[in-house]
């Protein structure tokens, strides 16, 4: 048994860390303040190969393992969660469903641009009335046999990467059983190209954090897409997105891990240099022990995240481990950012101090891609409990 990353994983982690420090960190505060979605940075990340990392080269991908993607997300999250979630959602929710369930033709059409960071995709699962209970989807797609088109009506809420200048598609879940036919409810996934008539991208939300990430509601009114835009088997939409979310949870956990590590690093540095009552604040156990706890949290989160990623790369079951990593690391990130803000005192409450942004950004981690409660449900069910 060993815990070492490969040389290539370490080398690439270093490249992404350098990139994050040079190209993202200096702008993070301004992007957050101005709610700027940094399209040029996304393109530069595309050139670095980040958006295509785990996909085969034939679609423009990098052919890496899943662990390498997690490392990249972790390194970017150390400086900016908004950019990290843009990457996580771009790969995990935009490209991954197409790669995993798409026909050869769908993959050829959509993946090269998504992998290159020239385009972004979104995944529309959540609705105003259905989030954790995603099976309660109300959006409907009705097949018009004559026209050979799906006709979509409904509404999606909080969809990441759905309204950027380079968004090329949003894959949505929709009921495809015929309404009033008495047939069993059936959920399928359909690819909706950006700009399709009948889909309206709502104005961006005003959010507590993730200001530089793109989030919109979408409304569908008589929106028509060709019948061959069905993604995966009809009726398999529910099972398919559950599998997609397993991957996503590990990736979100990696993002949370980067945040915890950044809190640790910045808190320790500050505790050494900030003086109060004649000594560095790190000389008081109240502060030093917070740092010690952050270090334990970072180590534990790292082990959970890398273990889950390892299991996925090894082709072994990882649903429980993904839920555990997501649960622990995201709740850890909320705690870590709160404690780091405390260590920074009044400066911690100021926008110019990165941990203040990290604090605002972290709360969503306990909510998106399955709330903490949902993770506990998944874990409980894996324990065989009848919840």
């Amino acid at each position, binding site marked *: 048994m060993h815990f070492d990353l490969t040389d*290539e994983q370490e*080398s*690439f982690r270093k*490249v992404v860390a*350098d*990139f994050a420090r040079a190209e993202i960190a200096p702008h993070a505060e301004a992007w957050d303040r101005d709610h700027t979605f940094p399209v040029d940075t996304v393109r530069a990340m595309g*050139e*670095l*190969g*980040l958006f295509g*990392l785990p996909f085969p*080269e034939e679609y423009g991908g*990098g*052919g*890496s393992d899943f662990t*390498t993607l997690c490392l990249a997300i972790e390194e970017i999250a150390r400086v900016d969660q908004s950019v990290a979630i843009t990457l996580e959602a771009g790969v995990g929710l935009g490209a991954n469903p197409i790669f995993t369930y798409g026909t050869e033709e769908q993959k050829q059409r959509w993946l090269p641009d998504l992998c290159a960071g020239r385009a972004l995709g979104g995944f529309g699962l959540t609705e105003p009335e259905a989030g954790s209970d995603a099976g309660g989807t109300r959006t409907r797609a009705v097949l018009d046999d004559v026209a050979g088109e799906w006709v979509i009506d409904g509404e999606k809420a909080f969809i990441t990467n759905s309204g950027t200048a380079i968004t090329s598609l949003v894959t949505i879940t929709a009921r495809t059983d015929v309404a009033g036919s008495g047939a069993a409810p059936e959920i399928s996934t359909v690819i909706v190209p950006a700009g399709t008539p009948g889909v309206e991208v709502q104005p961006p939300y005003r959010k507590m954090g993730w200001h530089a990430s793109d989030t919109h509601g979408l409304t569908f009114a008589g929106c028509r897409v060709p019948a061959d835009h069905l993604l995966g088997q009809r009726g398999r939409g529910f099972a398919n997105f559950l599998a997609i979310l397993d991957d996503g949870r590990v990736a979100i956990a990696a993002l949370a891990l980067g945040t915890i590590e950044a809190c640790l690093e910045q808190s320790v540095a500050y505790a050494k240099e900030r003086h109060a009552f004649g000594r560095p604040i790190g000389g008081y156990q109240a502060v030093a022990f917070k740092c010690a706890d952050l270090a334990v949290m970072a180590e534990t989160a790292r082990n959970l995240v890398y273990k889950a990623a390892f299991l996925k790369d090894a082709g072994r079951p990882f649903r429980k481990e993904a839920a555990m990593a997501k649960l622990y690391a995201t709740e850890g990130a909320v705690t870590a950012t709160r404690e780091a803000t405390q260590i920074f005192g009044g400066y911690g409450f100021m926008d110019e101090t990165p941990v203040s942004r990290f604090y605002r950004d972290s709360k969503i981690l306990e909510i998106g891609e399955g709330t903490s409660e949902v993770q506990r449900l998944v874990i409980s069910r894996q324990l065989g409990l009848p919840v």
Partner: protein
Amino acid sequence: MNVVVCVKQIPDPADPGALEEDHTLKRTGKLILDESDSFGVEMALQLVDKAGGGDVTLVSMAPNDETSGLRTALAMGAAKAVLVSDPALAGAGALDTAKVLAAAIGRVEGADLILAATESSDGYTGTVPEQIAGVLDLPSITFAKHVEVADGTVSVQRQTELGYDQCESPLPAVVSVTAGVVEPRYPSFKGIMAAKSKPVDQVTVADLGIDASAVGAAGAGQQIVEVTPAPERQAGEIIEDDGEAHLKIIDFLDGLKVL
């Protein structure tokens, strides 16, 4: 067009350095690509790209068969490398290094242009590129901030204190590149994977036909006798303004003969 880039692999400047007993820098840990050399690598890649064909070959001399720094430059896009690694080279001075690198460059077929950084970030002698040109009997242009190649001629904007000189030389030639003149690309993941299998021609001093006793500490013709820390900066003189401070400042400046 084929470009050779001399690259140095150095201890990570982010880690505190340490000295050996003979006062030379400890080079036992993992070595990385000297940032100064990333500019030459980038420039070479751009020149070859512009020329529409050819290869970038790296040449490096480093202890302990070190290739980590080379892999970084290979991941950026260089095609192959020659590495000279030989215990006999410990303690080599600038001229020995130039002789060894010149011999290594000789192993690269059809080199049209040889690039190097003006100076390394750890040694700072700033003499190796010119010495290589001397050993190879090639023209040398230093401090390049812009390089163009056309019709067997290299045109260089040579950085000066006031601006730049426009220089030209027939190829092949040795050109030293100043830091910051191009934006080195980040190696992509594909680049890193590809670099794993790019050829590194690893040779010893004997392979280069050089007499081991003529290079390294034995042949350096120099010795580092002593290393002392730079003196700490002294606290400045504080003049309290009692209404006459300006006179004291004038006296001070007068003493410096700057008035």
